[in-house]
């Protein structure tokens, strides 16, 4: 079912958005593309949560580009960080509900998620998703626990935790960073990404102005406000500048931007450029096995049969429904 179909009303009073279908699509995409032997995040709370120094709150949508969540886990482990990552629809911030006008349900979802952080008695929460952070900022203070208040972004944390001597492997690429600007957090994440990437031997950063028009990140909601065509146009202009300045890769920071950069430029590959998340480059330079960006591979291919072959192991090991898998992949990546 497409998102437009999800929004169809059944009658005047009745629902306008199928939240179950939305969350199922997110979970299905993750299950089809993740490492089937080990999930890099906790979906369901353990009966007896153990203490961890940090709770990493991934939010729900990052698991659609699962290599980002898996790379982050690899990197934190490599750096010796004691953490537990919470992610997927069971740890939604309620922004999807808020976006549909269901404020009470969205607030409740956020409250339920926030409560879970404290079960691990962390010293600090590290948040990945800008939308989740926005939800926390909008929430009444009394609905937040101390852990939810005592937080910083994953990227600024990594800038402190990843010592320069950890970066061993040369990554000879010239990158333009797709950063957003305009709020202290965006600016801090952009600066932190630049600091981290500058520690990678062989990597050069090309200076391009950050995105200022599309709010905090390229979320579905922000793009709906900005407009699909203006976004594509702005993206093409930005990539043209990056190419002219000598870049050979665009580096994404947030999962939402990564996804949109890939999806929007697959229609115009002649003006496009390879998109890579900064965590993939970090993992490579740390000497870790790089997680394949299947979202990018599938988006470029558009061949659903080939995708089904690529996810066959996951379907078998995770006991996933074949028809459902085909539907999810076709709707996300199928040739149009």
């Amino acid at each position, binding site marked *: *079912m497409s998102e437009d179909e999800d929004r169809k009303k*059944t009658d005047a*009073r*009745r*629902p*306008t*958005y*199928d*939240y*179950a*279908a*939305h*969350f*199922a699509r997110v*979970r299905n995409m993750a299950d089809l593309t993740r490492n089937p032997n080990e999930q890099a995040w906790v*979906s*369901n*709370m353990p009966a007896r949560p153990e203490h961890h120094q940090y709770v990493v709150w991934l939010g729900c949508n990052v698991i659609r580009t699962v290599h980002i969540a898996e790379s982050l886990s690899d990197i934190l482990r490599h750096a010796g960080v004691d953490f537990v990552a919470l992610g997927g*629809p*069971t*740890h*939604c911030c*309620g922004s999807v*509900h808020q976006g549909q006008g*269901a404020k*009470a*349900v*969205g607030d*409740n*979802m956020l409250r*339920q*998620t926030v409560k879970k952080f404290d079960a691990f008695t962390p010293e600090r929460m590290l948040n990945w998703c800008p939308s989740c952070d926005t939800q926390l900022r909008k929430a009444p203070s009394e609905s937040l626990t101390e852990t939810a208040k005592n937080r910083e972004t994953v990227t600024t944390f990594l800038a402190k935790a990843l010592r320069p001597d950890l970066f061993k492997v040369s990554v000879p690429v010239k990158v333009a960073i797709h950063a957003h600007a305009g709020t202290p957090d965006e600016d801090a994440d952009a600066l932190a990404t630049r600091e981290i990437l500058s520690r990678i031997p062989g990597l050069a950063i090309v200076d391009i102005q950050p995105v200022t028009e599309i709010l905090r990140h390229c979320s579905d909601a922000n793009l709906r406000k900005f407009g699909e065509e203006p976004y594509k146009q702005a993206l093409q202009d930005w990539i043209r500048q990056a190419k002219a300045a000598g870049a050979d890769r665009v580096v994404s920071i947030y999962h939402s931007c990564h996804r949109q950069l890939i999806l929007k430029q697959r229609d115009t590959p002649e003006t496009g450029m390879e998109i890579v998340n900064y965590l993939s480059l970090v993992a490579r330079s740390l000497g870790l096995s790089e997680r394949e960006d299947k979202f990018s591979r599938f988006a470029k291919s558009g061949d659903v049969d080939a995708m089904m072959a690529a996810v066959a192991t996951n379907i078998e090991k995770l006991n996933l429904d074949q028809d459902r898998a085909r539907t999810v992949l076709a709707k996300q990546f199928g040739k149009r």
Partner: protein
Amino acid sequence: MTSITFIDFVGNRQEVDAEDGFSIMETAVRNSVSGIVGECGGSCACGSCHVYVAEDWIAKLPAAEEMEREMLDLTFDTTPASRLGCQVTVTADLAGLVLTTPKPRA
């Protein structure tokens, strides 16, 4: 243990022994009851644990609280017999409860 029967939309019956203190949704997921997912993990935020309560049981269940009613308003194909499984806790009083799961949406 409390015996609860789930009936899917085509009429297949599945009787499960539910552990008191867990929700109907958790009970269904643990027993692989078809049609109940619990996508949001029991946060009353997705409607994927929607069930229809058998008529003679509707009044015997604790009434839905405001948050459940809010989410039911956002859930497709509800009727006066609708409840969200994540918001109903299994107790011995529910022995013999009969629930039907909705027809999956296309």
